[in-house]
């Protein structure tokens, strides 16, 4: 592109930004000749420059605008909102043309005849005088123009006019001496500032972090030498480096007012469109923050101010009848406090409608009626931050365009900020945003996993939990996910080692859990070691790594090593826990000891049914509309797979609409859903099942939580969903015999139905002694599954007895124990067990058991066949 044209684009974009602000000011203070003079001159200059560059189309629009402004100036035309809207339209059109020119390098073909004749009609007074002179904003005033305007404004938002920063700096050739001498006077806005390309500053920042690194290395060397003469100069170097770092960080700062520049215009347009009167107060516009942060909050701020103007502020009549001033006020306030920037967006409008939010949350299926009833107003308000939530009854042309408060929150959290909301019905809504001053240097916790170090932004770290045995903190497993019981909460955990696929470290180490928070989600990150907190310089990820979600960047530590900075948001996804699930797990947790948790539900009939909670992978509430019919069966898309849904009772009526409660049972790669009528409760109790085979699908009955319940045989439903769930290659109907030895009735009752569903005849024994009695009475089994820890005769002793006696010597033995450390497994195998399964992995237990059985029977089949 021609240099001259590029210059023109930059210059005009700046002029237009000023014009926007000045025009809105002028509308209020239309008697202020200085403002008008300034506006006129800017438009005049644009027009004049167009003449030089041969840009007739742009020149014509500017000329029409200048013409009207001239009439304002000469008092020939009165200043009305409609007239100002038209001028703004002209400005927008100029912007559109500029954007086109920026991409193509030439003035686009076409004509703006319509707009120009509209403006000329205004200038010549052809406009109906009633409208032109209408002093107040009202609903009649120019709906078409306003709509167009809104659309243009929106288009511009998406495709910004040439921003000054994006234009490469002009080539630094200075052919003439005099020219060079006058150059410092050039900057258009303030003579005390110069414009520097952002890249230059970024490069400087990179160089400074290199310098910091080198300084640190020098300091380390110097420390090793006693009484070095380098000590003093090194200290000075150290100070200078720090100052330099501060200085460059400050260079990246921009006043927040830059992000606010478009807001007066937006509010003004909205006021005209909706017929409201709105004042926009901006305080602390000079508050500076990192330009990167500034970019990130620009859109969220705009969105919130729009929301306030569109939904928050009432129309004049409503306000008047509520005893409030007719003109609503939106206040923007920015200030520094303790290393953070606070931005307050407040309006004195109607406040958020808690009831509407409540209804919407329920109708959107975000929460159930009973759950929300127990929530405070403050909690209910938080729903506006949930994805897909919008309370606007009618979508107006300016706001309500799909971006919701959830996007706002995401954007703010991405830069390590938080957003709080406060709303008082009838008095207004206040948002308080807290964001870090800069993203370039953050405080981070350095941790180690498998010998590799990582940085976790301190902002996300809530606390550290040491996992040494004495601390009593234990990692448990719920479903397939590790959790930490921390005080009264269950904290979902993610092992950094597993997540990043690192090698297990050779030596056993004390482990730590970093309790981290991302938004409303709290989770734990398991690491090997925790070092110190350090101020680190964030360097952007190399492009090749940008696809990974676990890293936010990298940094260089004082010792020169390069380490990765973890992105807690990405890692939390790895934890696989949304906050909602975490809450559920709070209620769902299991405990050791004989007691177990049961899920009580109703299905098919009014009797309570129970299922051991361990077996339930998830409790879901599916939209009935999402249930599909495939080949006479009901399925639903669940976690990117089709999940069969089985009714508890064949006669059970499917819900026609609304939500269908479903219990999800999973093994490694398959899930099935058991459709029930109602989830009643989760209780903890000792399980004492009276087995009865009365009905398919029921194990028997038990008294749980003081109520008689039917205990459900999940194995039955699993085979209904997947007929091959338990099938081995052996096929069915062989009537093999299994002995289950366990002192816990719960486990006996858990395993027995699993095996019987796979066509085993199951006998149970409460301990080793009881098992040996069965041997003495002449029973033979095809497989023995035994617990290790049992009274009277434990599993290891039992195995010894079995292997030491010819009667059961060849019978495959599988150990099932809650202790499955390597030592335990070794001891088990030494005692004579063929397989050793952990109890802790309950969700996979059925699957593991089936595989273990297959493995041991196959192994034993070999020698048997040879023998026969």
């Amino acid at each position: 592109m021609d240099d001259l044209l590029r210059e023109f684009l930059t210059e005009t974009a700046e002029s237009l930004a000023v014009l926007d602000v000045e025009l809105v000011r002028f509308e209020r203070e239309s008697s202020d000749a200085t403002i008008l003079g300034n506006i006129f001159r800017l438009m005049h200059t644009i027009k004049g420059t167009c003449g030089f560059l041969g840009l007739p189309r742009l020149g014509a629009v500017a000329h029409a605008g200048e013409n009207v402004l001239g009439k304002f100036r000469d008092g020939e035309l009165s200043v009305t909102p409609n007239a100002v809207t038209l001028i703004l339209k002209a400005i927008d059109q100029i912007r559109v043309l500029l954007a086109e020119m920026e991409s193509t390098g030439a003035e686009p073909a076409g004509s703006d005849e319509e707009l120009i004749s509209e403006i000329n009609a205004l200038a010549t007074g052809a406009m109906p005088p009633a409208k032109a002179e209408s002093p107040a904003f009202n609903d009649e005033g120019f709906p078409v123009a306003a709509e167009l305007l809104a659309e243009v404004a929106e288009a511009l938002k998406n495709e910004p006019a040439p921003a000054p920063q994006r234009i490469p700096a002009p080539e630094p050739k200075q052919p003439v001496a005099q020219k060079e001498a006058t150059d410092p006077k050039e900057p258009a806005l303030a003579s005390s500032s110069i414009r520097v390309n952002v890249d230059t500053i970024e490069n400087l920042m990179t160089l400074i972090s290199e310098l910091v690194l080198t300084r640190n290395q020098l300091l380390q060397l110097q420390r090793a030498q006693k009484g070095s003469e380098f000590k003093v100069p090194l200290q000075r170097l150290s100070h200078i480096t720090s100052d330099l770092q501060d200085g460059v960080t400050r260079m990246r700062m921009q006043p927040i007012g830059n992000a606010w520049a478009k807001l007066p215009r937006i509010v003004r347009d909205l006021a005209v469109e909706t017929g409201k009167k709105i004042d926009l107060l901006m305080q602390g516009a000079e508050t500076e923050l990192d330009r990167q942060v500034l970019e990130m909050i620009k859109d969220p701020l705009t969105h919130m101010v729009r929301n306030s103007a569109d939904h928050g502020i009432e129309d004049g009549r409503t306000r008047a009848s509520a005893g409030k001033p007719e003109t609503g006020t939106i206040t923007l306030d920015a200030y520094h406090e303790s290393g953070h920037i606070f931005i307050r967006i407040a309006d004195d409008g109607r406040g958020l409608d808690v009831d509407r939010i409540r209804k919407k949350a329920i109708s959107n299926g975000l929460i159930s009626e009973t759950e929300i009833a127990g929530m405070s107003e403050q909690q209910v308000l938080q729903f506006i931050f949930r994805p897909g939530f919008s309370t606007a009854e009618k979508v107006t042309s300016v706001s309500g365009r799909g971006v919701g408060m959830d996007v706002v929150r995401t954007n703010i959290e991405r830069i390590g900020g938080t957003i709080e909301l406060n709303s008082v019905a009838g008095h207004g809504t206040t948002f308080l945003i807290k964001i870090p001053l800069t993203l370039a240097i953050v405080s981070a916790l350095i941790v180690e996993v498998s010998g590799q170090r990582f940085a976790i932004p301190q902002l996300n770290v809530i606390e550290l939990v040491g996992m040494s045995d004495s601390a009593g903190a234990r990692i448990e497993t719920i479903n397939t996910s590790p959790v930490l019981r921390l005080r009264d909460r269950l904290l979902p955990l993610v092992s950094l080692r597993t997540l990043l696929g690192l090698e297990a470290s050779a030596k056993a180490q004390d482990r730590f859990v970093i309790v981290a928070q991302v938004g409303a989600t709290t989770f734990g990150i398991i690491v090997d070691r925790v070092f110190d907190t350090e101020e680190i310089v964030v360097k952007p990820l190399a492009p090749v790594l940008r696809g990974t979600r676990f890293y936010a960047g990298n940094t260089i530590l004082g010792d020169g090593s390069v380490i990765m900075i973890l992105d807690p948001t990405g890692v939390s996804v790895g934890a696989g826990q949304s906050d909602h699930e975490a809450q559920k797990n709070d209620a769902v947790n299991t405990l050791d000891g004989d007691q177990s948790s049961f899920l009580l539900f109703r299905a098919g009939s009014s009797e309570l049914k129970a299922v051991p909670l361990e077996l339930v992978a998830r409790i879901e509430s599916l939209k009935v509309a999402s249930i599909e019919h495939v080949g006479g069966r009901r399925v639903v898309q669940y976690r990117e797979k089709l999940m069969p849904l089985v009714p508890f009772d064949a006669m059970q009526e499917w819900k026609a609409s609304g939500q269908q409660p479903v219990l999800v049972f999973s093994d490694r790669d398959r899930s099935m859903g058991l459709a029930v009528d109602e989830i009643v409760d989760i209780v903890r109790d000792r399980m004492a099942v009276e087995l009865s085979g009365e009905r398919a699908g029921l194990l028997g009955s038990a008294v749980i939580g003081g109520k008689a319940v039917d205990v459900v045989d999940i194995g039955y439903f699993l085979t209904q969903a997947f007929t091959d769930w338990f099938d081995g290659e052996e096929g069915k109907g062989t009537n093999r015999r299994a002995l289950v030895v366990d002192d816990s009735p719960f486990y006996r009752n858990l395993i027995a139905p699993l095996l019987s569903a796979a066509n085993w005849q199951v006998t149970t024994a409460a301990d080793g002694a009881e098992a040996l009695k069965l041997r003495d009475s002449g029973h033979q089994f095809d497989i023995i599954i035994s617990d290790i820890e049992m009274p009277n005769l434990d599993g290891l002793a039992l195995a010894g007895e079995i292997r030491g006696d010819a009667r059961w010597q060849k019978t495959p033995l599988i150990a099932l124990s809650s202790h499955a450390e390597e030592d335990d497994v070794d001891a088990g195998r030494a005692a004579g067990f063929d397989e050793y399964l952990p109890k802790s992995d309950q969700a996979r237990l059925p699957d593991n058991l089936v595989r273990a059985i297959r493995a041991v029977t196959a192994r034993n089949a070999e020698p048997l066949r040879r023998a026969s």
Partner: protein
Amino acid sequence: MTNQIEIPFGADIEKSLDLAALPKLCLVVDDSKTIRRFTMQILESLNFIVAEAENGRDAVETCREVSPDLVLLDWNMPEMDGITCLRALRAMTLNPRPVIVMCTTENGMPKIREALECGADEYIMKPFDRDVLFDKLVQLELAERP
């Protein structure tokens, strides 16, 4: 500093300098950077040395420092407009006395008369191109046809 050479400075050096052949210094005053660049390109191609100012006040400052031979002065500018600047320049003792050309889109006679009365030597209508400006400079004997 290696590219610096010593030139013997004789007494006859004055004679060898043809002052008239030295390039002229022109100050371009306009609030549009684009217009300044445009005008500077033309002037430089005509062997002028060009300084610039973005408003009347800057122009007055620059003239105090460098005393240009020619000032192209825009009318409508922030800080200090062209007519005020013109009055200020004419009130100053400048050596040489600069030729001042008002560049304007104001085509009403009263304005032009006002400018001439205030000491403008010539006026030129905006927009102008290379030929128009060149003609004007020839007319003012600041440029010669080849």
